[in-house]
């Protein structure tokens, strides 16, 4: 149990996907301009990360390792993620149209989101058990969502601020990310 809590906190706060591992930066800077979009994107990414983790864990342990073809893992993982995103997109469209309208445009983007492939690779290299992998993916997803929401709150105000011409937009967002990263560094001492 202790071990699971450590994994969760480590993934969510200390080794935060965005601030410490630089995974999922494209949606981070692209989508974090509005609070509502940030929440939808975060939820969508967490959902796909969770499903992808379970799927790739099963594939890894019941196909790749028994047949000793782990060198194929990159190709297989990315194909699994791409098809999962398609399936999730279709499933949401059929069952819940409001949710689809909220998440719809972000789903195709998730295939090329490094956070999703990242979590499956992390779980494989760390040789986590299924439960540990799931906790790891949820921690990563929640940490991702958290930072996305904080960032969008800051950026909504930043838009109104009078920053120098050459700093507008991305540069000032990067500097904000630096300050957030430094803040999250404080969690490193949390034990």
């Amino acid at each position: 149990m202790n071990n699971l809590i450590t994994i969760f906190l480590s993934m969510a706060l200390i080794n935060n996907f965005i601030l410490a591992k630089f995974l999922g930066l494209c949606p981070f800077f692209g989508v974090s301009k509005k609070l509502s979009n940030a929440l939808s994107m975060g939820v969508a990414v967490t959902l796909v990360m969770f499903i992808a983790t379970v799927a790739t864990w099963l594939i890894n342990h019941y196909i790749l390792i028994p047949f000793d073809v782990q060198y194929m893992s990159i190709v297989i993982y990315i194909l699994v993620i791409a098809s999962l995103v398609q399936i999730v997109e279709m499933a949401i469209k059929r069952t819940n149209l409001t949710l689809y309208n909220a998440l719809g445009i972000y789903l195709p983007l998730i295939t090329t989101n490094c956070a999703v492939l990242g979590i499956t690779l992390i779980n494989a290299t760390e040789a986590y058990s299924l439960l540990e992998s799931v906790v790891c993916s949820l921690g990563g997803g929640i940490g991702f969502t958290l930072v996305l929401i904080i960032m969008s709150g800051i950026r909504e105000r930043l838009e109104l601020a009078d920053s120098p011409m050459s700093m507008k937009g991305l540069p000032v967002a990067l500097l904000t990310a630096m300050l957030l990263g430094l803040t999250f560094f404080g969690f490193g001492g949390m034990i």
Partner: protein
Amino acid sequence: MKTTSFWKEFTKGIVISNPLFVLVLGLCPALAVSTSVDNALGMSIGVTFVLLGSNIIISAIRKIIPNMVRIPIFIVIIATFVTIVNLVFHAYVPSLYESLGIYLPLIVVNCIILGRAEAFASKNPLLHSIADALGISIGFMLALLIISFLRETLGTGSLSIFGARLFTLPILGEHPMAIFVLPPGAFLLMGLLLALLRRLGVIKSE
């Protein structure tokens, strides 16, 4: 005529549409592995190989790829080249393989590569696609080298390439500004570099 356009495709990737500073693609590997010049070089070589390989193959078969399944095919081709890079690095430069970690396989989802496949190689002849791949790769490498050079020298106070110590700065060598090799330092440096390049007019402001 033909050589001028080859040259044009080649040079545009270096400055006018530099993948990192202008298009701001592939930020994730760029910030993650720019802690040392070694890592930056390794990453650039990996990206160059994958981009060149996938651009060549995709451009060569662009006329017979069924439009409906083109994205999955691009992904399979890219993932194959990335796996080759992984295996080769693991076998011949194990220390580099270790320090690049998961960022080496993550080349698969580097937006630069899928972006060039979709926007350029699938529409243009072979020779131009090669020029495009080389130009973009060199642009990526230059940008990555600038960032990693600054991060390594400021963050550790010295610079070494493949184990050979090139120089140690006088005061910084003893009291390095460690923040630059830590993740927040990457954001700081990238933000300042982008702002500086905009101020100098090298790239356009928003």
